[in-house]
Structure formats: structure tokens, C-alpha cells
């Protein structure tokens, strides 16, 4: 089997010339006086696949939630394709429109349990749906076909009419990815998308994200705990340590020393744990 890092090596070169998809500029955020992000800056080009790593509490989730404006920072800015999404703690008026271009995948899936898989995917289109139509939860045939196609793309078309709560974790996460496709997302932010999944589902989800990145050129930023997964699927990694960027570069350069600095003494445990048996090699 060809390793993804070989496939995407050309993309990496290209991406230097590609336009910037996500620009984070000196973003800082505190929770009740406790610093979660300290002047974080990063630049991610269109079509890149970037891993966000760091110990628990280092600020990965906070950073991702700030990028699509689920949270507001105190200072600094986030720009999506050059348009400001938030600047110094206030959202731009177009925040909803920018958000609709950014898919978000959560560790706990965050689907609406009582809606079907299909309805959960259709939700991805809400930003374009007229208010009166969403009031009665009505979607057009066209939209439904598109949603079903998205479910087919992620491989769970046969689950379309089941309630989300009746799906396995791996299937729910794929519904969440289908929702991103329905959104027409050009960027997907994934916050520990495989942390709640069994090894096999985790592998499927990672491969799905990788193929969306390679085939559709969707920019993917994923926070992860499993070092093997990062090494296997991501060319570029950004590491956070106590809310600060402490590494930004090629994943291959994340050697033992650097990992120890990022994770502290827990590094042994991290490298050995996770879904090593499935992803190694």
C-alpha cells in the first residue's frame, strides 16, 4: 500500500503557492484569567492537511473553536480566505457566511440524536435555506439528493433513514463528515475526530478525511492525540504547549526530543497508546 505521505508530497509543494485558507494572527484567549491561547499565529494554505498536537489542556480545542468562531478570542484575528472572521474579540458581520464554508467535526460527533442521518446531513445546508423553509424543516428534492449523495460518499447510504442515536460512533462521525460535504465546506476542522472510536472506525474516518483532502482539495486541520496517526496521515504538524505554538513544520521533524518537549514525560505512554496496532507501519 502506498503511504499517504508519498501521495501528498506534491500537494505540499503546491500548497506553498496556494492561497491561504486559514490565517490565525496573534490570537490570545483567557478563561477567567487562565490563559488558554497565547499569541498563536499560523498560516494554512488551501489543500493542506495539518495535524494539531499537544498535551491535554494545551489549547487545541480552543484554537479550533476560535477558527470557526464557536468561541471568541480576546485579542488577535482569524481570517478565512483572506476575510476576517474575528478581530480582537468581535465577530465580523459575515461570520455565519464564513462559518458555512468551514465544516467542524467534534470528538463527540454532536449530531442531533433524534433526527435521522439524512436530516443531520441536510442541516449542513441551513445557511442557504430561507428562514420560512427552515421553520417547517422542509428541504427540496434537490437538497435531499445531494445529502444522500454525501452519505453515499462516506459509505453509509444504507443508514440514511435511521436516527443518529441508532448509529455506531464510527457511523455518526461519518454522518458528521457528510454534513461538512453538504455544507460545501472548503475547510474541515476536526477536534479529535477519532478519540471516541474503535480502531477500525478510526482508520476509516482518517482515510475518509485524507481522501477528501487529496481528491477534493479540502483543507483539513485535525487535532489528535495519537502520534502514530499524525505520522501516518499528516505532512505538517503544529504543536501547542500551554497555549503557545512550540512547533510548526514537517511531521518527520517531530522526533523524540521534540515530542518530549511537547508532551512532557507522558510521551512514552502516548506513542505506545492509541490505535498503534492499526496505524503503525
Amino acid at each position: 500500500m502506498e503511504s499517504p505521505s508519498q501521495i501528498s508530497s506534491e500537494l505540499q509543494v503546491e500548497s506553498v503557492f496556494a492561497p491561504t485558507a486559514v490565517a490565525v494572527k496573534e490570537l490570545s484567549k483567557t478563561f477567567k484569567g487562565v490563559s488558554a491561547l497565547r499569541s498563536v499565529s499560523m498560516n494554512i494554505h488551501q489543500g493542506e492537511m495539518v495535524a494539531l498536537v499537544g498535551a491535554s489542556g494545551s489549547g487545541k480545542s480552543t484554537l479550533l473553536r476560535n477558527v470557526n468562531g464557536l468561541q471568541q478570542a480576546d485579542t488577535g484575528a482569524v481570517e478565512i480566505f483572506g476575510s476576517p472572521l474575528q478581530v480582537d474579540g468581535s465577530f465580523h458581520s459575515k461570520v455565519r457566511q464564513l462559518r458555512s464554508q468551514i465544516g467542524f467535526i467534534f470528538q463527540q460527533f454532536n449530531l442531533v440524536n433524534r433526527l435521522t442521518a439524512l436530516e443531520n446531513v441536510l442541516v449542513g445546508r441551513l445557511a442557504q435555506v430561507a428562514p420560512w423553509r427552515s421553520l417547517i424543516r422542509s428541504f427540496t428534492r434537490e437538497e435531499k439528493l445531494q445529502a444522500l449523495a454525501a452519505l453515499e460518499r462516506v459509505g453509509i447510504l444504507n443508514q440514511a433513514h435511521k436516527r443518529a442515536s441508532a448509529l455506531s460512533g464510527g457511523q455518526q462521525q461519518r454522518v458528521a463528515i457528510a454534513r461538512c460535504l453538504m455544507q460545501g465546506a472548503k475547510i474541515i476542522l476536526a477536534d479529535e475526530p477519532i478519540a471516541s472510536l474503535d480502531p477500525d472506525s478510526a482508520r476509516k474516518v482518517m482515510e475518509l478525511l485524507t481522501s477528501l483532502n487529496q481528491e477534493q482539495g479540502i483543507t483539513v486541520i485535525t487535532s489528535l492525540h495519537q502520534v502514530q496517526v499524525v505520522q501516518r496521515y499528516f505532512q505538517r504538524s503544529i504543536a501547542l504547549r500551554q497555549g503557545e505554538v512550540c512547533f510548526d513544520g514537517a511531521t518527520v521533524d517531530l522526533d523524540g526530543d521534540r515530542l518530549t518537549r511537547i508532551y512532557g514525560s507522558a510521551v512514552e505512554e502516548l506513542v505506545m497508546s492509541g490505535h498503534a496496532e492499526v496505524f503503525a507501519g
Partner: protein
Amino acid sequence: MSNSNFDSFNPTAYTNSVESSSVVSPEVLKTLAQEKPLITPMRIFWAVVAIAILIHTGEISDLSFGELFEGRGRMVTYISGYWFPDFTDSGLPRLSGECPSKYISAPFLFNLQLCIPTAIEGYVFDIIQTVGMGIWGTLISAIVAIPLSIIAAENVAPFFVVFIIRIFLGAMRVINEFVFALIFIVAVGLGPFAGVLALFVHTTGTLGKLFSEAIEEIEPGPVDGIRATGASKLQEVIFGVLPQVLPLWTSYTLYRFEANIRSAAVLGLVGAGGIGLTLFQSMRSFQNQKVAAILILLTITVVGIDTISAKIRQRLV
């Protein structure tokens, strides 16, 4: 002593095996000593206060179980006056030697006739009206409570809106249906509509509060998921909040419906429609056998509706 608990539990064995061996660390003993005592001066104080309140309020509400006991003879005489229930005015089909006009008569055994009323009338009419008042009072209030509860939920609306709506809902809730009925009778006249309005106002207050509490209990995750797609606030509520609360809301509404039927049954006492008026009139004219018939029919209706509604609620949650 700190080890008295152990003693009462297992006198020698436990003390020997745990206390004397080195298994128990000093920290453990210290933690045990920190266990809060059952009886404290504070608790004694509050117990005395509670008893004093009970005694005083009992006195001023003329609690006298002795009197109740002495009056038992009169009670028995009075209650025996309820026997045998008189269903003449009930509006139900009945057996009789001869049917009054407006009844269809069908021959029955011996020389009895089965008399079937040609119109919905009597207690049957009153009870249907009572149930109807309950249905409409509940339905309108549920519809009005939905938007109110959304803006009364702390996790949806800004603080000052929540605060104002809560006061509003509280006012609707604390005032009894009877008081509202008396007010609405002035506005729309005697009759069931005043009752419906009274139920509506009171129930809106109750459901508004229950609905908004249900909203405050939802999982925030799915709503985040909807927000992340670029959806508007209204869409977040429709797709993220409502699906989560609908089962509970329906359950609360059915529960209030049951309660409203019971309330509607007595609203007639103040002239606001339903079976209450007939009940009241029969009581005033000492037609106790008719009162008995009404109470029996009312009990059957209420128990029936409670049972059905409880079944539906079970399925929902």
C-alpha cells in the same frame, strides 16, 4: 471515640483486624474523625423551629381531629344520603318502564325499555364540555408557552430577557385558575370560554417554566454542531434545541392536560362552564344522589384520561 462505628458493626474482629494492624493510615483515621456528626446544635435549632411552626399553623387552621372523630356519625348519615346514585339527568342511555320524550325507546327484557337520548345532554354534555375546556386550555397554552419558554431559557436568550419573561411566567403561574376565571367572566361573560381562558393563563405560566427548564437541560453539543454549519440562531433552536426537548415537552403538556381536566371540573363553581356548575347546583339543592352520579362519572372520566395520557407519556420518555 472515632471507632465507635466499627464497634457497633463488628465488635472485636473488625477492631482487631483493621485498627490494630498497620493497614489503617493516620490519614484514614483523621478523615473518619472529620465525618460530620449527625446531631449538631444547628440541626436541633432548626428542628425546634419546624415543630414550632407546625404547632402554631395547626392551631390557627383549627386542626381538631377530635371534632372530626366526634362528627363521624353525622358524616355517615350525610354520605349515606348519596346512595343510590341518581343517573336521571346524566344523558346516558338507561332502562325504564317508559321513556320520556326526546328519547328513542327500544324494547328490552320484561316490560323495560332501553331509552337512548337523541341529543348529547345532561352530565354527559357537561363532562364533554369540561374535557373540551381542558383540551383547549392546554393546547393554546402549550402553543404560547413555546416561544415564551425559548426566550426564558438561560442558554438561549440574554439574561435580561430571561429575567423579565420569568417574572411574567411566574405571575401567570402563582395566581390560581379560579382567580383568573373570575376576571375573565367579567370580560367574556359566564360560560366555558372564561374557563378556557383561565386555564390558558395559568397553564402557560406552568408550561413556560417547565419548557424552559427542559431547554436548559439539553446537551449543548448538537447545538454547537448546528451553529458550526453557519446556521442562524432561529435555525439552531429549530434543528438543535426542539428535537431534544419535544418528547419532554409533550409529556409535560399531557401531564398538564390531566391536571386541567380536574381543574375544569370545578371551574363551574364560579360560573366558568363545565360540569362544576351542575355539581354545585345539585349540592346546593341537597340532591345528593345526583351529586353521587356526577362524581362517579367524573371519576371515570378523569381516571380514564389519566390512564391514557400516562400511557402516551411513558412511550415518549
